[in-house]
C-alpha cells in the first residue's frame, strides 16, 4: 500500500462543460487523449495514507525529479477565475 497514489495528467482538472457545443468531441479528448510528455509533467497524486489531499506534482518523467508540488484545490480556484 503506497502513501501516495497516482491519478494521471493534471489536465484532468479541466473538465469540459457538458452543454458545450462540441461536448462529445471535447469529452473524447478529455477522457482518452494524453500528451504523454517526456520531461516535466504536471500530474495528479492523492495523499491516500496521509491528509487525503489532492496534489499537482510537477515531475520529470525522464528521471523522476520533482520540482513543484501544489494543492489541487488552490490551483482549481485559480482556474475558475
Amino acid at each position, binding site marked *: 500500500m*503506497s502513501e501516495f*497514489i*497516482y491519478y*494521471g*495528467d493534471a489536465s484532468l482538472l479541466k473538465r469540459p462543460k457538458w452543454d458545450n457545443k462540441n461536448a462529445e468531441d471535447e469529452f*473524447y*479528448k478529455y*477522457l*482518452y*487523449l*494524453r*500528451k*504523454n*510528455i*517526456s520531461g516535466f*509533467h504536471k*500530474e495528479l497524486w492523492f495523499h491516500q495514507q496521509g491528509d487525503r489531499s489532492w496534489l499537482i506534482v510537477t*515531475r520529470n*518523467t*525522464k*528521471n*523522476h525529479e520533482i520540482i513543484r508540488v501544489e494543492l489541487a484545490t488552490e490551483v482549481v480556484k485559480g482556474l475558475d477565475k
Partner: protein
Amino acid sequence: MYYNFLKILKEGLTNNNGWKKTWQNPQIKKKYDVIIIGGGGHGLATAFYLAKEFNVKNIAVLEKNWIGGGNVGRNTTIIRSNYMLNENEAFYEFSLKLWESLEKQINYNAMVSQRGVLNLFHSDAQRDSFIRRGNSMIINGADAELYNVQKIKSIYPFLEYENARFPIKGGLFQKRGGTVRHDAVAWGYAHAADTLGVDIIQNCEVDNFKFKSGVCIGVETNQGYIKANKIGCAVAGSTSLLLSKANMSLPIESHVLQAFVSESIKPIIPGVITFGAGHFYISQSDKGGLVFGGDIDGYNSYAQRGNLDTLEDVCESGLALMPTISKARLLRMWGGIMDMSMDGSPIIDKTHIKGLYMNAGWCYGGFKATPASGWCFAHLIAKDYSHRLSENFRLNRFKNGYMIDEKGQGAQPNLH
C-alpha cells in the same frame, strides 16, 4: 537454410571461422518502399512478414539503438493465449500458433518452450471467472484445462496452499503456453528479414517526418533523410513522442514495467505460474534463474528503470505464493517503457496521414503478441486495410465507444 546440422559440424571442425554475421550492416539507400521505425520484436517481425508473406521488396528497419536493446529484451519471456474477450483471444491464439512454427520459419533457435502456464485462483468467485475465461479460450480454438489443488500439488508441491487469506483453490492451465528466449526472437527475426533482403539499420534515430500535401513521404534521421512510400511506427513506449511530430495526440501513457531475475538455482519451477491474489508471475530460465515480475510502477515514466517499492511489492507477492524462494538472491532487474493504452488493448491502424501507419498500445501483452502483431501490421501496410484479427484494434474505437477492456478498469492506463 543457413543454420543447419552440417554447417554446425563443419564450423565445429574448422574453428568456427566461417560464420557470416547474423545480419549485415548495409548502407542506407535513398529510398525504400516501406520503412519500419523501431527494430524491436514487432518491427522486425513486421519487416519479415512483409517480405515473406506479402511479397514487399525494398524494406528498411530503423532502430535508434541496437537490435534487442528495447522491450524485446526487457520482458519476462512468457507466451500464452489466455484472454477472455473474443477480440483479444482470437488474436493471441493466432500469435501462439505462429510461435509454434516460428523457429522453422526464421531458421533460428529461439528456444520456444511450451512448458505450460498456470493461473492460480484463490476463491470460489475467482474460480467462476477463470472457468468463464477458459471456456472463452476453448471457443476461440485455444486449449484450457481446469486443475484442482491435488493436481497442482503433484507439480508444485512447494506452494503455500493453506495461506489463511488466499488459499489456493485451483488453477486454469494452458499447456501450450510457455516461454521463449526473448533476445533470440529479435536476433532470429533480424536474421530472417536480412536473409530476405531487408536492410536493418542500427543507431538510426528518426527525428521527424516529412510531409508533402498531406502525405508522409520520408523521415529525417540522424543518418540523413530517407524517402519512403509507406512508413510504419512500432516504437512501443516512444509512440507518443514520435507521433507528436505528426501532430497526433494518442490514447496512450508511457509507464515503466520492471522484471527481475534471481541467481541460478536447481530446477524447481517447470512451467509458468501466476498468483491470482496479487500481481506476480514467475518462471525459471534454462540457466536456472527465477524470472519474475508484477505490476507496472504506476506513474508516467520514460526512465528505463523502476523504483524499489514495486520491487518490494512484487517480492512480497512472490513470498506469499512460494515461501521457498525467500532465500534466493536477486541478481538482475530492469525496466522497460510500456505503451499503456486507455483500454489495455493494442492499436494497429493507419493514421489520419496517408502513408503513415502505427502499431502501439501493447501494455503488458507485447512480447507474446510479437508474431501476430508483425503479421497483422504487415498486412495493414501491404494491403491498406486491416487484417481480420486486428480490425477491432483501431484508433476509432475510443471515439465510438467500442473499448476492448479485458479487465474492465476504464480509461485508467496504470490499472490495466
